[in-house]
């Protein structure tokens, strides 16, 4: 059933978030440390085990894949609910600080990605727009 997939996803997310909160408290910071990351690793491990035992049929899979397909629309909703006015009217200092940190971050990506084994580029997307339409 589809709900099994959604429920598995929800349980992983809740467990990961809780773990992130506990880690934050243990470190003495008022923030969730890595909750989403823990949840992702949990989801990968749990579904891998379930699939190996044939306990995660396609219907359950659909419950996870639906939310994966909703990811971009959710990001669009998030963008439309951002406090953009404050970002734009924050004054030159806020804009410069934000821009500078972003530019430097972008610039260092190639150097950091070179540490360890080189990464394999993903296969090029075939006609991304039609692909997206199908997913949406």
């Amino acid at each position: 059933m589809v709900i099994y997939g959604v429920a598995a996803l929800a349980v992983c997310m809740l467990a990961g978030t809780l773990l992130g909160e506990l880690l934050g408290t243990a470190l003495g910071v008022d923030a969730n440390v890595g909750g989403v990351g823990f949840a992702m690793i949990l989801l990968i491990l749990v579904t891998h085990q379930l699939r190996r035992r044939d306990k995660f049929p396609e219907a359950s899979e659909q419950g996870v894949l639906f939310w994966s397909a909703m990811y971009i629309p959710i990001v669009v909703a998030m963008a439309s609910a951002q406090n953009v006015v404050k970002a734009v009217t924050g004054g030159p200092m806020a804009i410069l600080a934000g821009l500078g940190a972003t530019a430097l971050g972008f610039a260092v990506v190639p150097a950091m990605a070179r540490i360890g084994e080189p990464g394999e580029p993903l296969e090029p997307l075939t006609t991304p727009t039609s692909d997206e339409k199908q997913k949406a």
Partner: protein
Amino acid sequence: MDQFTSVMADNGLLVAFAVVGTLMLAGGWLSRKLTRGRLQGSAIAILLGLVLAYWGGTVTDGQHGLADFAALSGLSLMGGAMLRDFAIVSTAYGVDLKVIRRAGLSGGLSILLGVLLSFVVGAVVAALFGYTDARSLATIGAGAATYIVGPVTGTAVGASSDVIALSVAAGLVKSVVVMVGTPLIAPLIGLNNPKSAMAFGGLLGTTSGVAGGLAATDKRLVPYGAMTATFYTGVGCLLGPSLFYVVLRAIVGG
């Protein structure tokens, strides 16, 4: 009109689905007509969302962009942290854990370096604009990390509220620029594989920015970038009020 608004407000999430669906449709159409598919439809939809958020913010004087219109309040539920993180976690389905483990070292170092670089850039910019006290420098530097690290650090070290507000603004600028800029800059920085996506997530760190930027670049990179970005804010909140503030105080004295 009252009835219209109340029906819309009572069914906020459904209105959000309809609005976002329309934005995606418009984004896909503009992508085909104006850029011949070179700029992805989702990137244009995100950009449209940001522009509308700006317009909504100026009209309503609120803090949640388009969602400050009562009829569109569902956008903040659909785009809020709960569903966003839920969807981010779902993208990890089918990801090979081995790939993540192989890129673990570079991803982990990226988080530390990313937080550090943001702190330094933010503090230097603040110093250029005439701030001399360690409290303000630390808070604005932390804001250049993310708009959550800024206020957390500012509150912890006792910065003034206008400095905290500036730090939030700096973080918002970063998040918006990452959302819009990533698809444009991706080919230049080799952002086309899981490993560079993990480095990217760790270096930029703003969850909303990384989530939006990678979605607009290549959706398959999302789980890798999100994996490291999720640790960034925590590390920033850990280092901001402690190590970073202490070092700054040693440099500027007070």
